[in-house]
């Protein structure tokens, strides 16, 4: 670590991991509610558990991105952060806002939360992933603006590299697209149309810039390959992401009342969306194979390679599986979507945040890498979580295929609930693998406390 102010990344990473634990806990609750329907009812109804599960995910990934940016930008710009103090204040505000929102979700019925936060003044609540009270959304915007101001000032006064350019473009894009969360027309079709500008243009748009920049940064550090080479790859990958992903938004415009030409355009462009992810896999392996040094942090290398492979599988392959409109006609809104969502989020975004944490945390704790024992534990965590996620995805895919068959394709279609009973076995299996994931997460977290100091 070359600059003192990079240390502000540390609380962000710790906060992210704490919320990660909360996310998985509530995931397990939901998973059990799929098969034991009245589990924890009426204290934690499914919708509440799901809000915590998804919102905690989004917030901890954002915290991870912010931590990554605070770590990377000073080092790349070769100067201290514009204002470390502002970064720390924003961390606590962000954490408090996230915590209060979760408390709000758990303590009072959602309708009450909507009422006391004045949702009727500017109704933005009650839409998937954007359930946060309007005031929380405004808080997110404020935190994001302060964060971007801080980083942009740092960027402007220092060296401008391709990595920071792409990272900042991604982060600015993230903030700008989030503004569409305040767009909530009464017209349901238009509501859904612009809702995807937040959701899709985040995860299949600007977030990919952030993902690419973080991966490129870590690969430069751990492989010692020329910056020039890595930056070219970075630009090629993100170009491919945006030229496929922008019109690829059309794969969400098949059945929500939008014109039917989207079925063609969405299918064509999203069919190409695996290409950038494939390029990313090639990129990660290529760079590691051409490494010019043996970095002592083997765990970080493993996470970086894992990101390449799992994002291709989750976002690329599982996305392609149901992106063509004739297939999507049957799979839209089934467990197939859930399967894709799980592996894509884990493979792309969870893993890239864990990659930068794996690389940066030892440095912030004053060592190039953790001890061998600690790294072995971390890699156990990697394999347990990754393999569990593969099986969670496979079981959900199995559930989805059966669901599609019984409820959609069959000439005598079953009702939704009757179908759910038929696929219960898959849900049990998924819950079991979810527990293994939790164990993997515990092992991973434990590696932080394992005598890291006797490092190489």
């Amino acid at each position, binding site marked *: 670590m070359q600059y003192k102010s990079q240390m502000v990344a540390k609380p962000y990473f710790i906060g992210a991991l704490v919320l990660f634990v909360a996310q998985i806990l509530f995931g397990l609750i939901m998973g059990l509610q799929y098969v034991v329907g009245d589990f924890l009812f009426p204290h934690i109804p499914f919708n509440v558990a799901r809000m915590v599960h998804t919102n905690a995910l989004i917030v901890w990934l954002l915290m991870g991105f912010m931590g990554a940016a605070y770590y990377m930008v000073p080092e790349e710009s070769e100067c201290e952060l514009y204002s470390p103090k502002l970064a720390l204040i924003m961390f606590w505000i962000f954490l408090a806002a996230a915590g209060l929102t979760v408390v709000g979700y758990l303590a009072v019925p959602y309708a009450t939360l909507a009422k006391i936060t004045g949702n009727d003044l500017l109704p933005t609540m009650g839409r998937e992933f954007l359930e946060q009270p309007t005031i929380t959304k405004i808080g997110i915007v404020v935190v994001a603006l302060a964060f971007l101001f801080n980083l942009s000032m740092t960027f402007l006064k220092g060296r401008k590299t391709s990595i920071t350019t792409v990272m900042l473009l991604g982060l600015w894009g993230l903030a700008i697209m989030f503004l569409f969360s305040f767009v909530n027309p009464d017209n349901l079709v238009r509501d859904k149309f612009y809702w995807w500008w937040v959701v899709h243009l985040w995860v299949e748009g600007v977030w990919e810039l952030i993902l690419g920049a973080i991966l490129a940064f870590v690969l430069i550090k751990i492989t010692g390959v020329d910056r020039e080479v890595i930056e*070219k790859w970075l630009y*090629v990958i993100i*170009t*491919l992401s945006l*030229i496929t992903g922008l019109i690829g938004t059309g794969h969400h415009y098949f059945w929500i009342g939008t014109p*039917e*030409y989207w079925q*063609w355009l969405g299918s*064509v462009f999203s069919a*190409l969306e695996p290409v950038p992810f494939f390029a990313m896999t090639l990129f990660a392996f290529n760079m590691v194979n051409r490494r010019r040094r043996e970095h002592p942090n083997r765990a970080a290398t493993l996470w970086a390679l894992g990101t390449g492979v799992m994002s291709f599988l989750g976002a690329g392959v599982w996305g392609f599986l149901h992106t063509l409109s004739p297939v999507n006609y049957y799979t839209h809104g089934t467990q197939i979507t859930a399967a894709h969502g799980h592996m894509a989020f884990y493979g792309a975004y969870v893993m890239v945040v864990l990659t930068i944490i794996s690389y940066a945390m030892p440095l912030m704790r004053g060592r190039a890498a953790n001890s061998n024992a600690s790294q072995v534990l971390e890699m156990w965590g990697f394999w347990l979580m990754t393999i569990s996620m593969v099986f969670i995805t496979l079981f959900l895919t199995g559930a989805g295929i059966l669901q599609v068959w019984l409820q959609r394709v069959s000439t005598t279609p079953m009702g939704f609930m009757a179908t759910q009973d038929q696929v219960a076995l898959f849900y049990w299996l998924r819950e079991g693998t979810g527990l293994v994931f939790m164990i993997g997460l515990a092992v991973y977290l434990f590696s932080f406390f394992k005598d890291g100091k006797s490092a190489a």
Partner: protein
Amino acid sequence: MSSDAIDMTEPDGRRHPPGDLAIWVFILAELAAFALLFILYGVVRAKHVELFNEMQLTLDRNAGALNTVLLITASWCVARAVAAIRKGADGASARWMACGILAGVGFLVVKGFEYSDKFDAGIGLDTNLFYMFYIALTFFHFMHVVLGLLILGFLLLKTLRGGYSADDHLGMETGASYWHMVDLVWIVLFPLVYVMR
């Protein structure tokens, strides 16, 4: 084309396509998108032969053919501009480039008349399957022509300012490669959409 064929083959040792390799990655990605659209066009046409044959008659084949001539000519001019700069003739290169741009603008004008005719008739992406493909393909291509012309315009300005020479013209080759891709796509598009029945 024996004597000057040497112009077009790569100098010894050059094993990469002309221009910056980055543009070639982009070209391949764009070609992939067009390939999917063309393939879908063929497959969907096979299912709706009568509709496609009937609708094809409502297109202006003369305008399509004229546009083919314009694009081919533009591509030829740009190729001559690159050949000229390789010999250091930047004046000739600029003249060829300007002719190329003129032909490209001509394409846009003809296409503009064609579109205004269609749009006045109330035709849009959702008119029917044939017109969905017609507009998606040609408009997507149209935008590529616009982008290509911007690139050619930049190349022309830089040539006029003496920015390229016999030793240093990678940038021109890069832009030219993109332009030829736009031409190539139209060479497939025209017979497929306007003529084949």
